[in-house]
């Protein structure tokens, strides 16, 4: 092994890729896409605002007014909490029953269709008996609006019941209180509060790993084939051993991936901090406190997994002359990577169950799933150890196998080799005559 030569290969692979426009376009397009996605989400949430003129058919006769008051109070409270924020402005119009209830509803329906009303609410004793109220509107998927209405109705009904039972009116505030379920992750070292930030970080890491195995693993396949079609490989092999060239390529391409993540994390820190801050303010996620162990495990499984998949992709690229020829076999690592994600829900739901244990020991799913388990639960140390050992041995075995196929494959041109032929290359040992040389031709 000559590290001078390997370094030269790494340098070339890295610089030639990082210098391309395609790399920078991809690097900036992905964050731009995510920011755009977040902006659209944010915009749609904000768009749930404006006037909502709703007719209330109150056959009880004493709920419509309190409801209108309750909605107005809630609106005022929201405005005080976040000044300047636009929200839904409810305009409640109590309507009498004209004729019978069905006729009234029919008339209101026409008003909604004619856009005179946004919707109408029916508060009828027969329905309320069954804990139901009916809300008719052209838009029934406006969750923010619907929730506001539902909460207001419940509060009004609660107060009504308190009054009916002759209980003190101040009881409503007490009864409306809800218990907040605080989740704490139990580890051998004690219990720490889990606000969801740790899990979100683990999922982000998992997505990065998954993407790297796919994208940058596949880059190895393309790189090998490119060198063959360019007919440059023989010139390089005259100076660098095939294993050195392979290693240099895998490392170089891996570093390109890491560069991309570095750019992304810098972009995330600078641009989307307000986004994260607002998300945290909305109480959806706690501050992402990422434990050091998670980062450590991420690096370990990331490197081992990347080498494993890069070796597989290299071995698959080496025998072929075009991407198309290699495509069929390239399905294998792709399926293996996807299968790691296929068991993701099972591992999430039961991080120490049978599926999780198997997926975290099976070398092709282990990088993703063992990492996930260490991040969300606390798998037994022997399982972590065993998983790492199996993964390391598999990676070394795969690199060895890839090296053997690579060595022969890169000089093979012409006809697309069959799988038995490729397997023969693995067994082939130079210096040993596979078949005795035929006697001199007469």
């Amino acid at each position: 092994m000559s590290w001078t030569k390997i370094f030269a290969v790494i340098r070339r692979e890295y610089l030639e890729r990082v210098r391309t426009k395609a790399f920078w376009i991809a690097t900036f397009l992905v964050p731009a896409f995510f920011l755009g996605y977040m902006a659209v989400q944010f915009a749609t949430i904000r768009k749930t605002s404006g006037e909502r003129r709703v007719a209330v058919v109150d056959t009880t006769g004493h709920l419509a007014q309190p409801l209108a008051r309750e909605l107005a109070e809630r609106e005022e409270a929201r405005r005080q909490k976040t000044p300047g924020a636009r929200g839904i402005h409810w305009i409640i119009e109590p309507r009498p029953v004209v004729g019978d209830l069905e006729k009234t509803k029919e008339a209101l329906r026409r008003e909604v269709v004619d856009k005179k009303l946004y919707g109408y609410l029916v508060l009828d004793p027969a329905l309320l008996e069954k804990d139901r109220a009916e809300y008719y509107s052209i838009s029934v998927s406006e969750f923010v609006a619907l929730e506001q209405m539902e909460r207001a109705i419940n509060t009004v009904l609660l107060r009504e019941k308190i009054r009916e039972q002759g209980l003190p009116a101040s009881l409503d505030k007490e009864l409306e209180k809800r218990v907040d379920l605080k989740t704490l992750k139990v580890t051998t070292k004690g219990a720490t509060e889990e606000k969801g930030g740790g899990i979100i970080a683990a999922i982000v890491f998992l997505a990065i790993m998954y993407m790297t195995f796919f994208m940058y693993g596949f880059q190895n396949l393309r790189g090998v084939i490119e060198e063959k079609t360019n007919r440059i490989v023989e010139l390089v092999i005259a100076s660098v051993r095939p294993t050195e060239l392979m290693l240099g390529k895998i490392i170089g391409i891996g570093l390109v991936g890491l560069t991309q993540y570095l750019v992304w994390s810098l972009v995330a820190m600078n641009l989307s901090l307000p986004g994260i801050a607002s998300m945290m303010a909305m109480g959806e996620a706690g501050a992402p406190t990422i434990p050091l162990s998670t980062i450590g495990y991420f690096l370990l499984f990331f490197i081992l997994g990347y080498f494993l998949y890069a070796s597989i992709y290299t071995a698959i690229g080496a025998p072929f002359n075009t991407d198309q020829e290699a495509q069929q076999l390239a399905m294998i690592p792709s399926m293996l990577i996807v299968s790691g994600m296929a068991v993701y829900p099972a591992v999430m739901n039961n991080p120490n169950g049978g599926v999780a244990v198997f997926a975290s020991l099976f070398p092709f799913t282990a990088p993703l799933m063992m990492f996930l388990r260490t991040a969300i639960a606390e798998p037994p140390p022997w399982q972590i150890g065993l998983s790492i050992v199996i993964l390391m041995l598999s990676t070394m075995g795969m690199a060895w196998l890839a090296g053997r196929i690579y060595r022969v494959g890169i000089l093979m041109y012409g006809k697309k080799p069959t799988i038995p032929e490729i397997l023969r290359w693995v067994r082939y040992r130079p210096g040993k005559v596979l078949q005795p040389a035929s006697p001199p031709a007469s």
Partner: protein
Amino acid sequence: MTAAIELENVSKVFGKFPAVDSLSFHVPRGVVFGLLGPNGAGKTTTIRMVMNITAADSGEIRVLGNPMTRETQNRIGYLPEERGLYRKMKVVDHLLFLAAIKEVSREDARRRIAEWAEKLELKPWLKKKVDELSKGMQQKVQFIATVIHDPEILILDEPFSGLDPINTAIIKEYLSDFRKKGKTIVFSTHVLEQAEKLCDEICLLARSKKILEGNLRELKRRFSRNLLHLSVDAPPAEIASLPGVASCQPVNGGYVIALSPGTDQREFLRRALDRHPLQGFSARDPELEEIYLDAVRAAGIEETRTIE
């Protein structure tokens, strides 16, 4: 001093097909050595084994006295038959990379690239991508890549195939420069005419086997077949019917005549002068092609493949 390259009983079998069959030859230092033979004779396989790109099944190969090591690999300049470059790389970056994998320091490499670019008029192209270069320009880049580390031995596989006449002339000039500096050049070709003009020593291959090896001048003497060149204006039948003529080949303005063994040249010329008005005559050395065909025949190999 040890030979530049030595092969002893080297064999290589691909499946059932013997690519190289117990081949031995040695290349003295400071010569231009031609590895000759038709396509498929085993030239490229031999060169790849010398370069340690393909491993020999049996036999021994020594380069500069020892089996090929990393250190000797860095002292060889190699131009493969399948020539390619990274198409998207800038010329100067490409050359720097190829120098780096020969463990040439970056400063040395930069200096030599500048020198060679000057000599081969490539300077304006150094910052361009390989893709943007003409084929002839790319050939110059490939040649610089072969010599960028100032090698002691040059191994060139079919160096002139695909080269335009101008580049052929340029490369030939630099090869003779290299030889003057005492460096060894090994090249393979299936064009015997080129070999004839360049080589000091040759090794002829046919059907995976060596059929002839040695100093070209000595070989010519050894294979001299009593050839005469006659400048004469006469029908071929009459010339062929002259006593002592074994074969008669019409050439421009006359004939090349091979005399049958035992025929005295002076006796034959006297008789020929009696019958025809000879404008001139000269003794003629055999051409490499003739030596090749003789050697193939002598080796008893049925060579159906044509050679240029």
